[in-house]
Structures are given as structure tokens and as C-alpha cells.
């Protein structure tokens, strides 16, 4: 093992590889921060460029893009309320209000620090206890995933704002929108009305950009006329305290970051769960245990740290099933799996024996990526803060055009652009009527997972609904869900009195 570790160290530690790590991080942060451009897209485009490279620099480049992209998404979420990636949606909940208070730089800094800490923690867990964790994750069948997703829906209470009922209605609408398109089990069409474009369903990226970015611009259009308080011009505060995170503030966020690391690592190891859910889940948990839950959604530093650590911890965790069992945890790791195979490496249990030194080089590369992310992220914050110096009259038209092209780029589809704009109007109306767009997004993201796991479970167990109560992990999640829902109801009743 020590020999392989030393060999791995030699393989990774050369200027060429470190340069590729930084290049990947730079590309990742840039792509992640542009609404519509996804990390998946960037990695898919870069994979062919790595064909002629050695495996270690190729993987260093790809992992750099992956990790950089996870942080990059939070930049646009904080500065212009437009999550660059779906996972950064939870970051926008408190990041943008912080920016409105003049604390955009502070929000970006805490996002970077929590992202790097959670990512490093997740990587360490990958290095130390990947095989047993992967085996636990594999025990998650459709009934367990259904109960987990059902539990995840309780985060709606945390992001509903003033009215839980409005939050629930918005989430239900999100669940409904997720059913449009092809039925995931039988392959039959739903609400397509004969249009082929609708068959693929409503895209997450068009919906995300519409709900957040376009709705924000439409509010801005109104603001120019009515001076609505909902769209305050974002400026950078001249006070150093508003632009830096001090140790006391950092210490206050450590608990949320640690929870995000644990949650993200565990859930990230389960194939198909994804970083968006973990970000929202950790955000919801942080709000629940916070001494000042009322500050969440109003620009809470802890809120940004919780969301960002929740989504970044998934990075290392998705590699757990990939490296130990050869099962990709999400789309990005599926592409990375392809890159492994192109270079003649088959991930799985035998990988540690057959390509041990490459695995250790990869582990070292992950750590270099995390350290590099601090540098590249710090530099990108310095560059990105200049966006706020651009006058609104120039910034908003540019963002609108960027939303158009970014959405079109997802699938080369004008239909998606139409969907984006329709959701822009829906998002605008929701804000006007005080319905939280974030809960609609949560419903939309969790909907397909909920339906798939429910129907798969019923198919597997001959339509027996009791299966969810018979399996221990599933039962455990259901009990937690019931307790959480009861707590929410009791609290709501007390508040009403």
C-alpha cells in the first residue's frame, strides 16, 4: 500500500498535472457561474480532449472542472439571484438577501470556505471508509429511496417563508410540472397534447433560470416604474466587516458545515440522489436547529454555509460507488466513468489492486483540487465582485440575453427557451403573490424520484403499500418524516395562537 501511495504521489506531483488541476478549476468555476452552462456539459466537452493524455492528468483536469463547477454555481446565485447550477439554488435563498444588504463578497467567501471544507471532508471519507459506506448505500432500494425523498419533502417547511400553506401549494405545483412528458415507468405520454417537444418533459435548467433569473428581471422592470422594495440594487458595502468572514462567524457556521459534510457524503454515496436535495436538506436542518431561524431567508451566513456545504460534500461522495463498485453516483461521474474506461481503467472492486497507484494519485489529486479551489475561488470572487459595478441598465439586458442563450444551449431547443420564459412569468407572479419559488423547485426536483421509487417499489412487491413499513431503513425514514411533520404542525399551531 505504501509503495502504491508513493507511486501515486510521484504520478500526481508534477507541474503538468497541477496545471491541469488549476485549468480544470478555472473552467469549472467559469462554466458553473454561467446560468445554463452545466458542469456536465463542460466535462462532456473536455472528455474527448483527454483521449491523448495520460490517465492522471486527464482525471486531474476532469475533477478540477467538477469541483470548480460546484462552487461556481454559487457566484451567480449570490450576485444576481440566478443559480449557475441547480445545486446552488439553496445558496441563493440567503446568498442573494446577503448581497442585497451589501454583503455579496462575504456571502461568496463563506460559500467558498464551506464548499472547500465540506468537499475535503467528503474526500477524506472517500479515502478512508469508501468500501463500507458504498455497501450501506447499496442497501437503498426503491422503498428506501421513496421514504428518503418523502422525508426530503419536509424541507418545504424550512423554505416556505411566511405561509406554510403557500409553500405546500407551490411544491405541489412543482410535483405536477414534473409529471409532464413521458411516464417514467410505462413510457406513455402525459399532458403532451400531441407535441413531441413536450414529450421530454420540462427541463430543470429552463425552469431554474426562468424561476430565478427571468423573474428577477421582470421584477426589475416593474421596479423601475413602481420602486418595489423587493428589488433593491445590489451594492458592495465599504465596511470591511461586510466583506470578510471573521473567525467568530466561521465558528458559528462550523456545525452546519459538519452536518452538511456528513449528510452530503452519506446521501451522495447513494446513486441518483444528487447534490440539490442534500443542499436543501442541510439548509432545512440548519434552520431547524438554529437559535435564530427567523434570519434564514433574510441573509443568514449560516444558511449560505449549510446550503453550500450540503451540495459540495456530494462531490467526493459520488466517487464512492464509482471507485468501489463501478456504479456512477450521478451524470457527471457517469461521464468520468467513461473517461476511466477510455484510459483502460475499469472502476470497481478490482481497481484498487490493478491500478492502486492511479487511485492514490487520484486521491492526492482530489486534495490538490480542494486547495486549488480556495485559490481559484478566491480569485474568481475578486473578479466576480466587479459585476456589481456594472449599472443595472446594462447588467439586466445582458443577463436576459445570457439566459436565452444558456437555456438554448442546454438542448439546442427553442421550446426550452419558451419554457424558461413561461417560468419567468410564473416566478414573477409567485413573488408578487408571496408564493416561494424555491418550494416549487424542490417539488419539481423530488417529483420524478418520488414517482419512480414509489412505482418501482409497487411493481417489485406486487402493489403492496406495506413494503414501506416492512423494511427497516424505509420505516426509519417514515418515522422521522412523521415526527418532523407533527413538529411542524405543532409549531404552526402555536404560532397561529
Amino acid at each position: 500500500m505504501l509503495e502504491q501511495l508513493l507511486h501515486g504521489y510521484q504520478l500526481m506531483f508534477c507541474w503538468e498535472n497541477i496545471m491541469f488541476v488549476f485549468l480544470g478549476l478555472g473552467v469549472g468555476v467559469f462554466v458553473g457561474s454561467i446560468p445554463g452552462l452545466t458542469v456536465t456539459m463542460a466535462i462532456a466537452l473536455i472528455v474527448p480532449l483527454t483521449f491523448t493524455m495520460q490517465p492522471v492528468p486527464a482525471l486531474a483536469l476532469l475533477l478540477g472542472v467538477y469541483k470548480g463547477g460546484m462552487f461556481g454555481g454559487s457566484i451567480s446565485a449570490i450576485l444576481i439571484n440566478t443559480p449557475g447550477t441547480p445545486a446552488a439554488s439553496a445558496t441563493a435563498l440567503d446568498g442573494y438577501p446577503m448581497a442585497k444588504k451589501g454583503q455579496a463578497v462575504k456571502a461568496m467567501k463563506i460559500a467558498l470556505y464551506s464548499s472547500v471544507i465540506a468537499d475535503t471532508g467528503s474526500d477524506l471519507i472517500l479515502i478512508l471508509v469508501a468500501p463500507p459506506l458504498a455497501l450501506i448505500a447499496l442497501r437503498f432500494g426503491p422503498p428506501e429511496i421513496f421514504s428518503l425523498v418523502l422525508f426530503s419533502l419536509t424541507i418545504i417547511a424550512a423554505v416556505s417563508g411566511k405561509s406554510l400553506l403557500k409553500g405546500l401549494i407551490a411544491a405541489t405545483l412543482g410535483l405536477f410540472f414534473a409529471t409532464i412528458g413521458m411516464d417514467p415507468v410505462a413510457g406513455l405520454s402525459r399532458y403532451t397534447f400531441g407535441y413531441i417537444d413536450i414529450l421530454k418533459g420540462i427541463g430543470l435548467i429552463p425552469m431554474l433560470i426562468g424561476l430565478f433569473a427571468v423573474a428577477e428581471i421582470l421584477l426589475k422592470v416593474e421596479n423601475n416604474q413602481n420602486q418595489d422594495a423587493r428589488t433593491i440594487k445590489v451594492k458592495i458595502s465599504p465596511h470591511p466587516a461586510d466583506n470578510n468572514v471573521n473567525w467568530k462567524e466561521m465558528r458559528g457556521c462550523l456545525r452546519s458545515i459538519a452536518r452538511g459534510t456528513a449528510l452530503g457524503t452519506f446521501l451522495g454515496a447513494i446513486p441518483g440522489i444528487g447534490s440539490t436535495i442534500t443542499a436543501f436538506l442541510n439548509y432545512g436542518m440548519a434552520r431547524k436547529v438554529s437559535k435564530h431561524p427567523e434570519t434564514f431567508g433574510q441573509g443568514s451566513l449560516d444558511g449560505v454555509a449549510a446550503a453550500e456545504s450540503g451540495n459540495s460534500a456530494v462531490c467526493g461522495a459520488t466517487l464512492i460507488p464509482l471507485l468501489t463498485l463501478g456504479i456512477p453516483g450521478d451524470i457527471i461521474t457517469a461521464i468520468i466513468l467513461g473517461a476511466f474506461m477510455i484510459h483502460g481503467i475499469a472502476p470497481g472492486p478490482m481497481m484498487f489492486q490493478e491500478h492502486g497507484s492511479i487511485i492514490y494519485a487520484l486521491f492526492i489529486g482530489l486534495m490538490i483540487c480542494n486547495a486549488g479551489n480556495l485559490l481559484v475561488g478566491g480569485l474568481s470572487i475578486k473578479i466576480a465582485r466587479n459585476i456589481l459595478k456594472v449599472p443595472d441598465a446594462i447588467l439586466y439586458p445582458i443577463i436576459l440575453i445570457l439566459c436565452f442563450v444558456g437555456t438554448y444551449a442546454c438542448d439546442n431547443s427553442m421550446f426550452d427557451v419558451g419554457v424558461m420564459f413561461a417560468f419567468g412569468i410564473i416566478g414573477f407572479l409567485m413573488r408578487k403573490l408571496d408564493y416561494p419559488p424555491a418550494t416549487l423547485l424542490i417539488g419539481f426536483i423530488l417529483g420524478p424520484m418520488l414517482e419512480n421509487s414509489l412505482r418501482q417499489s409497487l411493481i417489485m412487491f406486487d402493489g403492496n403499500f406495506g413494503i414501506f413499513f416492512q423494511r427497516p431503513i424505509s420505516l426509519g425514514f417514515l418515522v422521522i418524516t412523521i415526527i418532523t411533520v407533527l413538529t411542524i404542525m405543532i409549531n404552526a399551531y402555536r404560532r397561529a395562537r
Partner: protein
Amino acid sequence: MKTYSRNQLFSLLLLIFSLLLFFFITPMAVEKGGIEAAQDPSFVPNLITIILGLLSFLMLLAETFKSQLIPSGKMAPLFSLRLFIAISFFILYMISTSLIGYIPATFLALAIYLFFFGVRNWTTIIVLSTSFAVFLYWFFAKIMFVMLPVGTIFKG
């Protein structure tokens, strides 16, 4: 004259929408599958529709009990003329991109939006519109290999 609040009207609309969904739209627009819940494509949509209907009804009740009846004259319109113009521009941008292609349509749309948002210096408008349209084309089409629309007019 007293009238309903906006929240009441919206929850009533949602309630009507969920009823329409359950009784007319879903039976018509969802293909028929198996009878069992797991194989029926309308099982989950129907479940969601029922929840939506119940929540809308609860909302309607809650808002009615609040008894905040607002005189109709005090309700500001949801859409202003300015917003309507901005939305129309965007729809025109979508149509023109399909017709004349990405670069000319983006140049025009950006110039119009810059003017709409309050930029009055024509040099700034022309320089920004041109450079941004070309930069985005270079980045998306040449670097990211996205096939941006050429426009039906120039296709043939």
C-alpha cells in the same frame, strides 16, 4: 363594493384548475396504461391533483376566515404596461432568432433592451450589442459547440 382578496382569487383559480385536471384534462391528456397503481401513468398525477385541490381549498378557507375583504379599487394590477412591453420584446426576440438567426436577432434585442432599461448613449448601445452578440456567438458556437440558430431566412 367589497370584493375578494388576491389570495382568495388565486386559490379559487387553483381549486378550479385541480378540478379540471382531475375530471377532464388528466383523463384526456394522459395515455391509458395498466389498471394497477404502479402501471397507471395517471396514478401519480391524480394523487398530486387531489393534494393540490385540498390545499387550494384549505387556502381558500383560511383566507376567507381572515376576512380581509379589500375594495377592488385598492388592488394594483399584477402586470404593468412596461412589463407587458418587456414580455412582448422577449417573444419577438424568440421569433426573430428563428427567422433571422442568432447574431442579428441578439444584436437587435440587446439594443432594444438597453434602450428600454434606460441607456440613452447610442455609441454604448451599438458597441455593447455588437460585441456581446459576437462574444456569445464565439463562446457558445466555437468553444462549446452549440448549434445556434442560423435563421430560416438564411438557411436555404
